[in-house]
């Protein structure tokens, strides 16, 4: 019964347009009343609306806007002269308006120009897709490369600080030339460093697990008791040199120049704490005598 009433209603409404070889489309928006309705790009009213439409193929577009976001419905309809149609509209999920997209692209561009790596990557994509910015494969490439260069710089810093994943990343980058000038020797060098650091990390993790079970209680105790015990040794020179004892006890590892370590360890406190002291001057002189040596003490002394 309801269907009969609806068809009769449409027929009555369509009668006045019959003479123009047109028909009528009833657009209904259940959840988005008030959305603008366009037929072939022309605003025809707010949803719900009954709108005349020419026979043939027509484009129906319904749009609702709130702030920077809009919801859209688009459909192509086949209109038959004198035959009314009914369209139930369900709008899309909210999405940025073209204006907002352009504004966001502008902000990203500004951030990218300020050195933000994520923004660089986004701007590159925007140029690639022509979203918010005029499509430009050249500019897309420019920003992609710039982003990779900046990213490589950051990763290099991390690698220099001992981050193993970053060392591996740098090895790959030098191998492929991603963000850096391609270099087989640097790729190899970082690869070796990464491998050695990874091994060291594993060994340390293993030791840490062992030590976690027995948190070197004896060693802790030693540092509690230092003082009296140490005195008698320091008052009498020891014949067996430290390096002999240390080599004997420790498992073979990379050798360490203990004299150099001890010299630097002895010079550093006063160099750091009192750069005006004779000890600091000795540090400076040491560096001057061996300019090739990488001696961080010099910095503290100058400071």
């Amino acid at each position, binding site marked *: 019964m309801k269907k009969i009433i609806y068809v009769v209603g449409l027929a009555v409404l369509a009668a006045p347009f019959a003479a123009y070889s047109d028909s009528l489309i009833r657009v209904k928006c259940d959840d988005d009343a008030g959305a603008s309705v366009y037929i072939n790009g022309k605003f025809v009213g707010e949803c719900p609306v009954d709108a005349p439409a020419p026979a043939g193929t027509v484009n129906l577009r319904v749009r609702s806007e709130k702030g920077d976001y809009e919801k859209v419905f688009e459909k192509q309809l086949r209109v038959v002269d004198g035959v009314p149609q009914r369209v139930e509209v369900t709008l899309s999920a909210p999405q940025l308006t073209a204006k907002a997209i352009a504004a966001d692209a502008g902000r990203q561009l500004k951030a990218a120009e300020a050195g933000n790596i994520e923004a660089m990557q986004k701007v590159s994509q925007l140029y690639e897709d022509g979203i918010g910015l005029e499509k430009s494969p050249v500019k897309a490439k420019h920003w992609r490369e710039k982003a990779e260069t900046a990213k490589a710089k950051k990763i290099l810093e991390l690698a220099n600080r001992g981050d193993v994943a970053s060392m591996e990343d740098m090895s790959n980058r030098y191998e492929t030339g991603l963000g850096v000038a391609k270099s087989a020797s640097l790729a190899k060098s970082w690869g070796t460093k990464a491998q050695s650091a990874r091994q060291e990390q594993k060994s340390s993790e293993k030791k840490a697990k062992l030590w976690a079970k027995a948190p070197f209680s004896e060693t802790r105790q*030693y540092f509690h008791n230092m003082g*009296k015990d140490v005195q*008698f040794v320091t008052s009498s020179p*020891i014949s067996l040199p*430290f390096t*002999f004892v240390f080599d004997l006890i420790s498992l*073979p590892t990379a050798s360490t120049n203990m004299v150099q370590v001890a*010299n630097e360890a002895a010079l550093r406190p006063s160099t*750091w704490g009192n750069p005006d002291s004779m000890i600091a001057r000795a540090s400076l002189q040491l560096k001057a005598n061996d300019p090739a040596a990488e001696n961080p003490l010099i910095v503290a002394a100058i400071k």
Partner: protein
Amino acid sequence: MNRFAVALIATLVVGCASPGKQNVVGRTPPISIRGWHELQGYLQGVPSQLRQAIVQEGEARLPRTVNAAIQDAVESEVSQAVLFDILQHTHNQALLPDAEFERLASVVIGKSQEQQSFAAALAGYLTQSDFGCQQPVYARYFQRRYPSANLAKPCSADVPFEVLNQYEGAKIVWINPKRVKSIHLLFASKSQSMASRFGHIALRLVVCPEGNTAAEVCDANLLEHVTLGFQAHIDELSLNTIKALNGEYKAYLFASRFMDMYEQYAIGEFREVYSLPLRLDETQRELMVRELADIHWRYAGEYSFFTRNCATLMQNALKISWPDFAANEKVRGNYLRPDSLFEAIKFSSLAEGDKLASLDDAEREGYYFSSTRQFYENALNEVREGMGKPAFADLEGYLQINPIMRRQARADDEQFSTRLAADRHLREAQLMLEEYSILRSGRVLMIEAAKYFERQDFLENSDNIRAQLDGEHADVFEKCLLTPIRQHARPIQRLKGIPVKSDIPEMPGQASICKSIQSRKLLHETISGIKNADSEQWRKLIELSEYLAESIANLKLLKQM
């Protein structure tokens, strides 16, 4: 006390002299005629009174037959042997030791040793052209007692010292006295230990770098500065108070690197070190360096912590090697404490005491080295402030954290890591803490190792251990453990004076094969395989060595930043 424990803490001073003994038996055998004739040549330049006394003694001893053994010897040796023979049998007062010689001998060779024969020394002085270079203290005495113009021979430019380095053992360091820009009296402030309750006193040779004698360059050349100080040779693992009071420990004039001494006192024990320049002209400095070298190679006396200690022995050495000191009224007292001796010299005309008037100025100019405690505490605070959640409150707390955990904590604290990479001052502070951990754990390792080696007594038990090893392990055990221990276990030897290069005994070293990773592994396996009551101590030592190795790894990582 077993031999290995002795080896571990025995000093490395080497050399040997079997002192002559004055023979006063009634029968006097004849002397060689050829030797007597050759001796005449040596006596040409000798003061006439002395020559006459010798001739009188010699002629009375001429034999009817010639001693064949003496005939074969080289000329100077023949002459010296004949002269020695004459002198050791004489009763002529002019040819016998006097009180002054006795006093010198006690300072140069030590009373506890058999006294070197006056006869042997005088024979050497009259017949050996290099006697003045080898035994400058006695040579100067003879020069005073028997003045002569033509006996001195120019000495080689460099004087050797056996300088101890706690990390690498002893090394011979050759010092040209002309490179010694000044000599300072060093004083390390007191500590809680019995041995250092009144401080410690020594001398510091301010050695210029080769080819540069600019004062400021010499002063800052700290790595080459050498200290000379009398120390007890405590040949056991803990200080025996009774022995210390009874003078049962031996004393030697040890040479050390200044930086080792600085590390020991200013860092290891947080003591202050004062360095007082003595007023010496170039001639006096050279004389002092050569005569101290003489004592360094020859002296072995008793050490008693109250009556024959670093202060009293130093006074004696200064009295003979520095005439101004011997003559100065203000330092006439017998100073039993290092602090008293230091104060007396500081306020006398013998030293530039005013250099210590302002400690700030003194620290800048190298006359005062402050305790580093405050620097470490400041560094610790700076690092604590930089870290999000520091797990330590003080230096001891820092040392008690597993170095791997310390590394992990830094890596986990991204903000701190970033600051460490960017802020050199903070990074230096962090480096200081890791280096402190290395120095401290190194000391503990040596103490614990000494305890272990003493109990294991490898030399004593070597046969038992070797019996359980295969050929490869036994070979490494012998070459890389027992041999070095035997080398270091040699008793402290004394030479008959300042040696020339060819007279210096070979320093103990390790065979090159022992440095290979394979050898070290085999040796490690050998010791780890010994299962007895001390195996637990070995495990503790390995743990300590890992602590040290991980601290070094932390250091390397921080330096790479």
